[in-house]
Protein backbone atom coordinates (compact mmCIF):
# COMPACT_ATOMS: atom_id res chain seq x y z
CA UNK A 1 0.00 0.00 0.00
CA UNK A 2 2.85 2.36 0.89
CA UNK A 3 4.50 1.56 -2.43
CA UNK A 4 1.18 2.12 -4.22
CA UNK A 5 0.70 5.53 -2.66
CA UNK A 6 4.34 6.54 -3.03
CA UNK A 7 4.18 7.36 -6.71
CA UNK A 8 1.27 9.83 -6.63
CA UNK A 9 2.82 11.26 -3.48
CA UNK A 10 6.11 11.87 -5.29
CA UNK A 11 4.24 13.42 -8.22
CA UNK A 12 2.44 15.81 -5.90
CA UNK A 13 5.62 16.84 -4.11
CA UNK A 14 7.39 17.39 -7.43
CA UNK A 15 4.43 19.44 -8.67
CA UNK A 16 4.48 21.69 -5.65
CA UNK A 17 8.26 22.01 -5.73
CA UNK A 18 8.24 22.90 -9.42
CA UNK A 19 5.52 25.46 -8.72
CA UNK A 20 7.64 26.99 -6.00
CA UNK A 21 10.85 26.95 -8.01
CA UNK A 22 9.18 28.59 -10.99
CA UNK A 23 8.62 31.55 -8.74
CA UNK A 24 4.90 31.98 -9.38
CA UNK A 25 1.97 30.65 -11.30
CA UNK A 26 2.77 27.36 -12.98
CA UNK A 27 0.93 25.24 -15.47
CA UNK A 28 1.15 22.42 -12.94
CA UNK A 29 -1.73 23.86 -10.89
CA UNK A 30 -3.97 22.24 -13.47
CA UNK A 31 -3.09 19.01 -11.79
CA UNK A 32 -5.36 20.11 -8.93
CA UNK A 33 -8.22 20.41 -11.36
CA UNK A 34 -7.49 16.90 -12.58
CA UNK A 35 -7.56 15.49 -9.05
CA UNK A 36 -10.84 17.23 -8.29
CA UNK A 37 -12.39 16.11 -11.59
CA UNK A 38 -11.34 12.49 -11.19
CA UNK A 39 -12.46 12.32 -7.55
CA UNK A 40 -15.89 13.75 -8.34
CA UNK A 41 -16.27 11.60 -11.45
CA UNK A 42 -15.32 8.36 -9.70
CA UNK A 43 -17.49 8.90 -6.64
CA UNK A 44 -20.57 9.96 -8.58
CA UNK A 45 -20.26 7.27 -11.22
CA UNK A 46 -20.15 4.52 -8.62
CA UNK A 47 -22.73 6.02 -6.27
CA UNK A 48 -25.78 4.39 -7.88
CA UNK A 49 -24.41 0.90 -8.48
CA UNK A 50 -22.73 0.94 -5.07
CA UNK A 51 -26.19 0.59 -3.55
CA UNK A 52 -26.20 -2.99 -4.79
CA UNK A 53 -29.41 -4.85 -4.10
CA UNK A 54 -30.07 -2.38 -1.28
CA UNK A 55 -31.28 0.04 -3.96
CA UNK A 56 -34.61 -1.63 -3.22
CA UNK A 57 -34.81 0.55 -0.10
CA UNK A 58 -34.99 3.62 -2.31
CA UNK A 59 -37.67 2.03 -4.49
CA UNK A 60 -39.82 1.23 -1.48
CA UNK A 61 -39.76 4.80 -0.21
CA UNK A 62 -41.44 7.83 -1.77
CA UNK A 63 -38.19 9.25 -3.17
CA UNK A 64 -38.75 11.74 -5.98
CA UNK A 65 -36.44 11.70 -9.00
CA UNK A 66 -35.10 15.17 -8.22
CA UNK A 67 -34.31 14.20 -4.63
CA UNK A 68 -32.55 11.07 -5.88
CA UNK A 69 -30.35 13.00 -8.31
CA UNK A 70 -29.53 15.80 -5.88
CA UNK A 71 -28.89 13.31 -3.06
CA UNK A 72 -26.54 11.26 -5.20
CA UNK A 73 -24.73 14.30 -6.62
CA UNK A 74 -24.06 16.05 -3.33
CA UNK A 75 -21.44 13.71 -1.78
CA UNK A 76 -19.10 13.74 -4.83
CA UNK A 77 -19.50 17.51 -5.12
CA UNK A 78 -18.54 17.89 -1.48
CA UNK A 79 -15.63 15.41 -1.67
CA UNK A 80 -14.35 16.95 -4.89
CA UNK A 81 -14.59 20.45 -3.47
CA UNK A 82 -12.72 19.40 -0.34
CA UNK A 83 -9.89 18.06 -2.51
CA UNK A 84 -9.90 21.29 -4.49
CA UNK A 85 -9.79 23.48 -1.38
CA UNK A 86 -7.01 21.36 0.12
CA UNK A 87 -4.93 21.39 -3.07
CA UNK A 88 -5.18 25.11 -3.68
CA UNK A 89 -4.67 25.95 -0.02
CA UNK A 90 -1.34 24.11 -0.20
CA UNK A 91 -0.61 25.73 -3.56
CA UNK A 92 -1.29 29.16 -2.05
CA UNK A 93 1.16 28.38 0.74
CA UNK A 94 3.89 27.02 -1.55
CA UNK A 95 3.41 29.38 -4.43
CA UNK A 96 1.16 32.32 -3.55
CA UNK A 97 -0.38 34.13 -6.48
CA UNK A 98 -3.47 36.02 -7.53
CA UNK A 99 -4.47 33.14 -9.82
CA UNK A 100 -4.97 30.66 -7.00
CA UNK A 101 -8.45 31.91 -5.94
CA UNK A 102 -9.54 31.72 -9.59
CA UNK A 103 -8.45 28.12 -9.83
CA UNK A 104 -10.10 27.33 -6.51
CA UNK A 105 -13.43 28.63 -7.83
CA UNK A 106 -12.92 26.77 -11.11
CA UNK A 107 -12.10 23.54 -9.28
CA UNK A 108 -15.33 23.72 -7.30
CA UNK A 109 -17.18 24.29 -10.56
CA UNK A 110 -15.41 21.30 -12.08
CA UNK A 111 -16.41 19.21 -9.04
CA UNK A 112 -20.07 20.04 -9.71
CA UNK A 113 -19.76 19.42 -13.45
CA UNK A 114 -17.88 16.12 -13.18
CA UNK A 115 -20.22 14.89 -10.45
CA UNK A 116 -23.17 15.35 -12.79
CA UNK A 117 -21.31 13.79 -15.74
CA UNK A 118 -20.43 10.78 -13.57
CA UNK A 119 -23.92 10.58 -12.18
CA UNK A 120 -25.45 10.46 -15.63
CA UNK A 121 -23.15 7.56 -16.54
CA UNK A 122 -23.79 5.87 -13.20
CA UNK A 123 -27.55 6.09 -13.63
CA UNK A 124 -27.44 5.10 -17.29
CA UNK A 125 -25.10 2.13 -16.83
CA UNK A 126 -25.51 0.92 -13.24
CA UNK A 127 -24.35 -2.50 -12.16
CA UNK A 128 -26.11 -3.67 -9.02
CA UNK A 129 -24.53 -7.10 -8.89
CA UNK A 130 -22.77 -7.95 -5.67
CA UNK A 131 -21.13 -11.21 -6.65
CA UNK A 132 -18.60 -12.42 -7.54
CA UNK A 133 -17.61 -8.82 -6.93
CA UNK A 134 -19.32 -5.46 -7.07
CA UNK A 135 -18.55 -3.40 -10.18
CA UNK A 136 -20.88 -0.43 -9.58
CA UNK A 137 -21.01 0.44 -13.31
CA UNK A 138 -21.06 -1.55 -16.50
CA UNK A 139 -17.99 -1.94 -18.70
CA UNK A 140 -19.48 0.52 -21.18
CA UNK A 141 -19.46 3.28 -18.59
CA UNK A 142 -15.92 2.35 -17.62
CA UNK A 143 -14.80 2.70 -21.21
CA UNK A 144 -16.53 5.94 -22.09
CA UNK A 145 -16.29 7.78 -18.77
CA UNK A 146 -12.81 9.25 -19.16
CA UNK A 147 -13.17 10.34 -22.82
CA UNK A 148 -16.57 11.90 -22.08
CA UNK A 149 -15.29 13.64 -18.95
CA UNK A 150 -12.19 14.87 -20.80
CA UNK A 151 -14.29 16.24 -23.64
CA UNK A 152 -16.78 17.98 -21.34
CA UNK A 153 -14.05 19.33 -19.06
CA UNK A 154 -12.00 20.38 -22.08
CA UNK A 155 -14.86 22.38 -23.55
CA UNK A 156 -15.62 24.04 -20.21
CA UNK A 157 -12.02 24.94 -19.46
CA UNK A 158 -11.06 25.86 -23.02
CA UNK A 159 -11.01 29.64 -22.38
CA UNK A 160 -8.68 29.20 -19.40
CA UNK A 161 -6.51 26.72 -21.31
CA UNK A 162 -6.18 29.17 -24.20
CA UNK A 163 -5.27 31.95 -21.78
CA UNK A 164 -2.63 29.75 -20.19
CA UNK A 165 -1.29 28.49 -23.52
CA UNK A 166 -0.76 31.97 -24.91
CA UNK A 167 0.46 33.26 -21.54
CA UNK A 168 -2.11 36.05 -21.50
CA UNK A 169 -2.18 38.61 -18.70
CA UNK A 170 -4.05 38.38 -15.42
CA UNK A 171 -7.05 40.40 -16.60
CA UNK A 172 -7.43 38.10 -19.60
CA UNK A 173 -7.18 35.10 -17.30
CA UNK A 174 -9.97 36.54 -15.14
CA UNK A 175 -12.15 37.02 -18.22
CA UNK A 176 -11.34 33.51 -19.43
CA UNK A 177 -12.19 32.10 -16.00
CA UNK A 178 -15.53 33.89 -16.11
CA UNK A 179 -16.26 32.32 -19.48
CA UNK A 180 -15.21 28.91 -18.19
CA UNK A 181 -17.47 29.23 -15.17
CA UNK A 182 -20.35 30.15 -17.48
CA UNK A 183 -19.61 27.11 -19.65
CA UNK A 184 -19.38 24.91 -16.57
CA UNK A 185 -22.80 26.20 -15.50
CA UNK A 186 -24.33 25.41 -18.88
CA UNK A 187 -22.75 21.94 -19.02
CA UNK A 188 -23.74 21.17 -15.44
CA UNK A 189 -27.34 22.13 -16.09
CA UNK A 190 -27.39 20.04 -19.26
CA UNK A 191 -26.07 16.97 -17.44
CA UNK A 192 -28.41 17.60 -14.53
CA UNK A 193 -31.40 17.52 -16.88
CA UNK A 194 -30.09 14.40 -18.61
CA UNK A 195 -29.53 12.75 -15.21
CA UNK A 196 -33.09 13.60 -14.19
CA UNK A 197 -34.43 11.96 -17.33
CA UNK A 198 -32.33 8.84 -16.86
CA UNK A 199 -33.20 8.64 -13.16
CA UNK A 200 -36.86 8.86 -14.06
CA UNK A 201 -36.43 5.78 -16.22
CA UNK A 202 -34.34 3.98 -13.63
CA UNK A 203 -36.82 4.60 -10.84
CA UNK A 204 -39.91 3.82 -12.90
CA UNK A 205 -39.28 0.07 -12.91
CA UNK A 206 -37.25 -1.94 -10.49
CA UNK A 207 -34.05 -3.14 -12.20
CA UNK A 208 -33.32 -6.14 -9.95
Amino acid sequence: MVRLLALPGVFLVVTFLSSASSGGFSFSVYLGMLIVAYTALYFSMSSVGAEGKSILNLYQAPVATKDFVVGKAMPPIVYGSIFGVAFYAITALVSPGAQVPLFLILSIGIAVEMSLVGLLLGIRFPNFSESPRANFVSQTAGLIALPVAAAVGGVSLSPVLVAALFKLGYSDLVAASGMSIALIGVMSYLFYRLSLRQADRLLSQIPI
Partner: protein
Amino acid sequence: MEKITKNYGNVLALNGVSTRVEKGEIRGLLGANGSGKSTLMKILLGLVRPDDGLVTVEEVNPAVDSIAARQIVGYMPETPRLYDFLSGIEYLDFVADLHGLAAEVKKQRIDEYLAAFDLKEQGNDLLSGYSMGMRQKVAICAALIHKPKVLILDEPLNGLDPRTAKIVKDTIVKLASDGVTVLFSTHVLEIAEAMCQRILSRALPRSGGRQVQVLGPHAALGQDLLLGLRPKAGDRVQRAQPGAAGDNQEGPARAGEEEGDGPAAGAARGLPGGHLP
Protein backbone atom coordinates in the same frame (compact mmCIF):
# COMPACT_ATOMS: atom_id res chain seq x y z
CA MET B 1 -57.16 -4.52 -9.74
CA GLU B 2 -58.77 -4.96 -13.11
CA LYS B 3 -57.46 -7.35 -15.72
CA ILE B 4 -53.81 -6.96 -14.79
CA THR B 5 -51.45 -8.51 -17.30
CA LYS B 6 -47.68 -8.63 -17.09
CA ASN B 7 -45.16 -10.35 -19.31
CA TYR B 8 -41.44 -10.72 -18.79
CA GLY B 9 -40.30 -11.26 -22.33
CA ASN B 10 -41.98 -14.47 -23.39
CA VAL B 11 -42.90 -15.42 -19.85
CA LEU B 12 -46.47 -14.65 -18.88
CA ALA B 13 -46.35 -13.63 -15.21
CA LEU B 14 -49.90 -12.33 -14.81
CA ASN B 15 -52.79 -12.66 -17.15
CA GLY B 16 -55.97 -10.73 -16.55
CA VAL B 17 -55.92 -10.71 -12.74
CA SER B 18 -58.94 -8.91 -11.29
CA THR B 19 -59.86 -8.51 -7.66
CA ARG B 20 -60.69 -5.96 -5.01
CA VAL B 21 -59.42 -5.85 -1.44
CA GLU B 22 -61.49 -3.99 1.13
CA LYS B 23 -60.13 -1.83 3.91
CA GLY B 24 -59.09 -3.79 7.00
CA GLU B 25 -58.91 -7.11 5.22
CA ILE B 26 -56.08 -9.56 5.47
CA ARG B 27 -55.68 -11.10 2.12
CA GLY B 28 -53.26 -13.87 1.41
CA LEU B 29 -51.79 -14.48 -1.99
CA LEU B 30 -51.25 -18.18 -2.23
CA GLY B 31 -49.39 -19.71 -5.09
CA ALA B 32 -46.42 -21.76 -6.07
CA ASN B 33 -42.99 -20.24 -6.49
CA GLY B 34 -42.91 -18.21 -9.68
CA SER B 35 -46.67 -17.92 -9.91
CA GLY B 36 -46.61 -14.12 -10.02
CA LYS B 37 -47.26 -13.22 -6.38
CA SER B 38 -44.27 -10.93 -6.06
CA THR B 39 -44.98 -9.34 -9.43
CA LEU B 40 -48.52 -8.54 -8.35
CA MET B 41 -47.21 -6.95 -5.15
CA LYS B 42 -44.65 -4.88 -7.00
CA ILE B 43 -47.34 -3.66 -9.36
CA LEU B 44 -49.37 -2.50 -6.37
CA LEU B 45 -46.38 -0.50 -5.17
CA GLY B 46 -45.59 0.94 -8.57
CA LEU B 47 -42.24 -0.89 -8.73
CA VAL B 48 -43.36 -2.74 -11.83
CA ARG B 49 -45.74 -1.38 -14.44
CA PRO B 50 -48.38 -3.74 -15.75
CA ASP B 51 -48.54 -4.27 -19.48
CA ASP B 52 -52.29 -3.96 -19.32
CA GLY B 53 -55.03 -3.38 -16.78
CA LEU B 54 -55.77 -0.90 -14.03
CA VAL B 55 -54.60 -0.86 -10.40
CA THR B 56 -55.92 1.54 -7.81
CA VAL B 57 -54.64 1.74 -4.24
CA GLU B 58 -56.71 4.11 -2.10
CA GLU B 59 -57.68 6.13 -5.19
CA VAL B 60 -54.06 6.25 -6.39
CA ASN B 61 -52.86 4.56 -9.54
CA PRO B 62 -49.32 3.34 -8.72
CA ALA B 63 -48.40 3.14 -12.40
CA VAL B 64 -49.13 6.86 -12.73
CA ASP B 65 -48.08 8.21 -9.34
CA SER B 66 -45.81 5.70 -7.64
CA ILE B 67 -44.57 8.29 -5.13
CA ALA B 68 -48.09 8.80 -3.80
CA ALA B 69 -48.61 5.03 -3.75
CA ARG B 70 -45.45 4.48 -1.72
CA GLN B 71 -46.63 7.06 0.81
CA ILE B 72 -49.70 4.99 1.61
CA VAL B 73 -48.25 1.52 1.11
CA GLY B 74 -45.75 -0.26 3.34
CA TYR B 75 -43.82 -3.02 1.62
CA MET B 76 -41.64 -5.80 2.90
CA PRO B 77 -39.85 -7.68 0.11
CA GLU B 78 -39.30 -11.41 0.21
CA THR B 79 -35.58 -10.90 0.82
CA PRO B 80 -35.10 -7.68 2.76
CA ARG B 81 -32.06 -5.75 1.56
CA LEU B 82 -30.78 -3.93 4.59
CA TYR B 83 -27.65 -1.83 4.90
CA ASP B 84 -25.39 -4.14 6.88
CA PHE B 85 -23.10 -1.33 7.99
CA LEU B 86 -25.94 0.37 9.86
CA SER B 87 -27.42 -0.58 13.21
CA GLY B 88 -31.11 -1.48 13.46
CA ILE B 89 -31.95 1.95 14.85
CA GLU B 90 -29.88 3.74 12.21
CA TYR B 91 -31.55 1.80 9.43
CA LEU B 92 -35.05 2.58 10.69
CA ASP B 93 -33.99 6.20 11.16
CA PHE B 94 -32.86 6.28 7.52
CA VAL B 95 -36.13 4.76 6.28
CA ALA B 96 -38.10 7.22 8.40
CA ASP B 97 -36.09 10.06 6.86
CA LEU B 98 -36.95 8.80 3.38
CA HIS B 99 -40.60 9.07 4.40
CA GLY B 100 -40.02 12.57 5.74
CA LEU B 101 -41.04 11.89 9.33
CA ALA B 102 -40.36 14.54 11.95
CA ALA B 103 -37.55 13.81 14.42
CA GLU B 104 -39.83 13.29 17.42
CA VAL B 105 -42.29 11.09 15.57
CA LYS B 106 -39.42 9.11 14.13
CA LYS B 107 -37.83 8.40 17.50
CA GLN B 108 -41.14 7.49 19.09
CA ARG B 109 -42.06 5.05 16.31
CA ILE B 110 -38.64 3.42 16.21
CA ASP B 111 -38.82 2.81 19.97
CA GLU B 112 -42.38 1.55 19.65
CA TYR B 113 -41.66 -0.95 16.87
CA LEU B 114 -38.36 -2.18 18.26
CA ALA B 115 -40.11 -2.91 21.54
CA ALA B 116 -43.04 -4.59 19.79
CA PHE B 117 -40.72 -6.90 17.87
CA ASP B 118 -38.37 -7.69 20.76
CA LEU B 119 -35.46 -5.85 19.18
CA LYS B 120 -34.95 -3.17 21.79
CA GLU B 121 -31.75 -4.67 23.17
CA GLN B 122 -30.19 -5.28 19.76
CA GLY B 123 -31.24 -1.91 18.33
CA ASN B 124 -27.71 -0.52 18.40
CA ASP B 125 -26.06 -3.65 16.99
CA LEU B 126 -24.97 -3.71 13.37
CA LEU B 127 -27.46 -5.35 11.00
CA SER B 128 -24.68 -7.57 9.67
CA GLY B 129 -24.83 -9.43 12.98
CA TYR B 130 -28.59 -9.96 12.91
CA SER B 131 -30.12 -13.38 12.35
CA MET B 132 -32.52 -13.91 9.46
CA GLY B 133 -35.53 -13.61 11.76
CA MET B 134 -34.23 -10.38 13.25
CA ARG B 135 -33.67 -8.97 9.77
CA GLN B 136 -37.23 -9.90 8.82
CA LYS B 137 -38.50 -8.10 11.90
CA VAL B 138 -36.46 -4.98 11.11
CA ALA B 139 -37.83 -5.07 7.57
CA ILE B 140 -41.39 -5.25 8.90
CA CYS B 141 -40.65 -2.34 11.24
CA ALA B 142 -39.37 -0.39 8.23
CA ALA B 143 -42.54 -1.19 6.29
CA LEU B 144 -44.65 0.08 9.20
CA ILE B 145 -42.61 3.13 10.16
CA HIS B 146 -44.77 5.60 8.19
CA LYS B 147 -48.05 4.02 9.37
CA PRO B 148 -49.21 2.85 5.95
CA LYS B 149 -52.86 2.35 5.06
CA VAL B 150 -51.96 -0.70 3.04
CA LEU B 151 -49.32 -3.21 4.06
CA ILE B 152 -47.81 -5.57 1.52
CA LEU B 153 -45.72 -8.40 2.87
CA ASP B 154 -43.93 -10.78 0.56
CA GLU B 155 -43.43 -14.12 2.31
CA PRO B 156 -43.29 -12.46 5.75
CA LEU B 157 -42.97 -15.71 7.67
CA ASN B 158 -40.11 -17.15 5.65
CA GLY B 159 -37.40 -18.54 7.88
CA LEU B 160 -38.93 -17.28 11.10
CA ASP B 161 -38.86 -19.30 14.29
CA PRO B 162 -42.30 -20.12 15.76
CA ARG B 163 -42.14 -17.38 18.37
CA THR B 164 -41.20 -14.68 15.88
CA ALA B 165 -43.75 -15.99 13.39
CA LYS B 166 -46.42 -15.62 16.06
CA ILE B 167 -45.36 -12.04 16.77
CA VAL B 168 -45.62 -11.25 13.06
CA LYS B 169 -49.00 -12.97 12.71
CA ASP B 170 -50.38 -11.18 15.77
CA THR B 171 -49.10 -7.89 14.40
CA ILE B 172 -50.83 -8.48 11.07
CA VAL B 173 -54.13 -9.27 12.79
CA LYS B 174 -53.78 -6.23 15.06
CA LEU B 175 -53.03 -3.94 12.12
CA ALA B 176 -56.06 -5.23 10.23
CA SER B 177 -58.28 -4.61 13.24
CA ASP B 178 -56.92 -1.05 13.23
CA GLY B 179 -58.10 -0.64 9.63
CA VAL B 180 -54.88 -1.40 7.78
CA THR B 181 -55.36 -3.48 4.66
CA VAL B 182 -52.85 -6.31 4.63
CA LEU B 183 -51.83 -8.27 1.60
CA PHE B 184 -49.35 -11.04 2.17
CA SER B 185 -47.99 -13.76 0.00
CA THR B 186 -47.04 -17.29 0.81
CA HIS B 187 -46.53 -20.49 -1.05
CA VAL B 188 -47.39 -22.52 2.03
CA LEU B 189 -51.05 -23.47 2.29
CA GLU B 190 -50.87 -24.02 6.04
CA ILE B 191 -49.77 -20.43 6.60
CA ALA B 192 -52.59 -19.09 4.45
CA GLU B 193 -55.06 -21.28 6.33
CA ALA B 194 -53.75 -20.10 9.67
CA MET B 195 -53.89 -16.47 8.67
CA CYS B 196 -57.08 -16.41 6.63
CA GLN B 197 -60.44 -17.38 8.02
CA ARG B 198 -61.54 -18.32 4.56
CA ILE B 199 -59.74 -19.23 1.42
CA LEU B 200 -61.68 -18.88 -1.76
CA SER B 201 -60.99 -22.17 -3.41
CA ARG B 202 -62.02 -25.39 -4.81
CA ALA B 203 -58.69 -26.16 -6.37
CA LEU B 204 -57.02 -27.23 -3.18
CA PRO B 205 -58.12 -30.57 -1.79
CA ARG B 206 -56.69 -29.66 1.58
CA SER B 207 -58.45 -26.33 1.85
CA GLY B 208 -60.88 -27.76 4.40
CA GLY B 209 -64.00 -26.79 2.53
CA ARG B 210 -62.78 -23.25 2.08
CA GLN B 211 -62.92 -21.56 -1.24
CA VAL B 212 -60.03 -20.43 -3.36
CA GLN B 213 -60.57 -17.84 -6.02
CA VAL B 214 -58.51 -18.68 -9.03
CA LEU B 215 -57.43 -15.27 -10.15
CA GLY B 216 -55.27 -15.64 -13.14
CA PRO B 217 -54.59 -18.23 -15.75
CA HIS B 218 -50.93 -19.05 -15.78
CA ALA B 219 -50.90 -21.85 -18.24
CA ALA B 220 -47.57 -20.60 -19.48
CA LEU B 221 -46.13 -21.50 -16.11
CA GLY B 222 -48.50 -24.32 -15.39
CA GLN B 223 -49.39 -22.67 -12.13
CA ASP B 224 -52.32 -20.86 -10.68
CA LEU B 225 -52.29 -17.73 -8.63
CA LEU B 226 -54.56 -18.35 -5.72
CA LEU B 227 -55.96 -15.91 -3.30
CA GLY B 228 -57.13 -16.27 0.26
CA LEU B 229 -59.27 -13.81 2.12
CA ARG B 230 -59.76 -12.96 5.74
CA PRO B 231 -62.95 -11.02 6.16
CA LYS B 232 -63.26 -7.93 8.25
CA ALA B 233 -64.28 -8.32 11.88
CA GLY B 234 -68.01 -8.87 12.08
CA ASP B 235 -68.31 -10.27 8.61
CA ARG B 236 -70.34 -13.41 8.24
CA VAL B 237 -68.12 -16.42 7.96
CA GLN B 238 -69.48 -18.73 5.35
CA ARG B 239 -68.17 -22.15 4.64
CA ALA B 240 -68.40 -23.30 1.12
CA GLN B 241 -70.99 -26.00 0.68
CA PRO B 242 -69.81 -29.15 -1.03
CA GLY B 243 -70.93 -28.90 -4.59
CA ALA B 244 -72.02 -25.31 -4.23
CA ALA B 245 -68.47 -24.06 -4.43
CA GLY B 246 -68.36 -24.90 -8.06
CA ASP B 247 -70.79 -22.08 -8.78
CA ASN B 248 -68.06 -19.56 -8.21
CA GLN B 249 -65.06 -21.42 -9.38
CA GLU B 250 -63.91 -23.00 -12.47
CA GLY B 251 -60.83 -24.84 -13.45
CA PRO B 252 -57.58 -23.14 -14.28
CA ALA B 253 -57.67 -21.21 -17.49
CA ARG B 254 -55.29 -21.77 -20.34
CA ALA B 255 -53.19 -19.29 -22.22
CA GLY B 256 -54.89 -17.94 -25.27
CA GLU B 257 -58.22 -17.37 -23.61
CA GLU B 258 -59.54 -13.90 -24.05
CA GLU B 259 -59.13 -11.55 -21.16
CA GLY B 260 -62.27 -11.22 -19.15
CA ASP B 261 -63.72 -14.39 -20.46
CA GLY B 262 -61.43 -16.85 -18.75
CA PRO B 263 -62.20 -18.67 -15.55
CA ALA B 264 -60.22 -16.07 -13.64
CA ALA B 265 -62.53 -13.36 -14.77
CA GLY B 266 -65.44 -15.67 -14.19
CA ALA B 267 -64.36 -16.32 -10.64
CA ALA B 268 -63.86 -12.62 -10.07
CA ARG B 269 -67.29 -11.90 -11.47
CA GLY B 270 -68.81 -14.58 -9.30
CA LEU B 271 -67.14 -13.09 -6.23
CA PRO B 272 -67.47 -9.34 -6.63
CA GLY B 273 -64.79 -7.58 -4.74
CA GLY B 274 -63.20 -10.86 -3.85
CA HIS B 275 -65.72 -11.34 -1.05
CA LEU B 276 -67.63 -14.47 -0.40
CA PRO B 277 -71.24 -14.11 -1.38
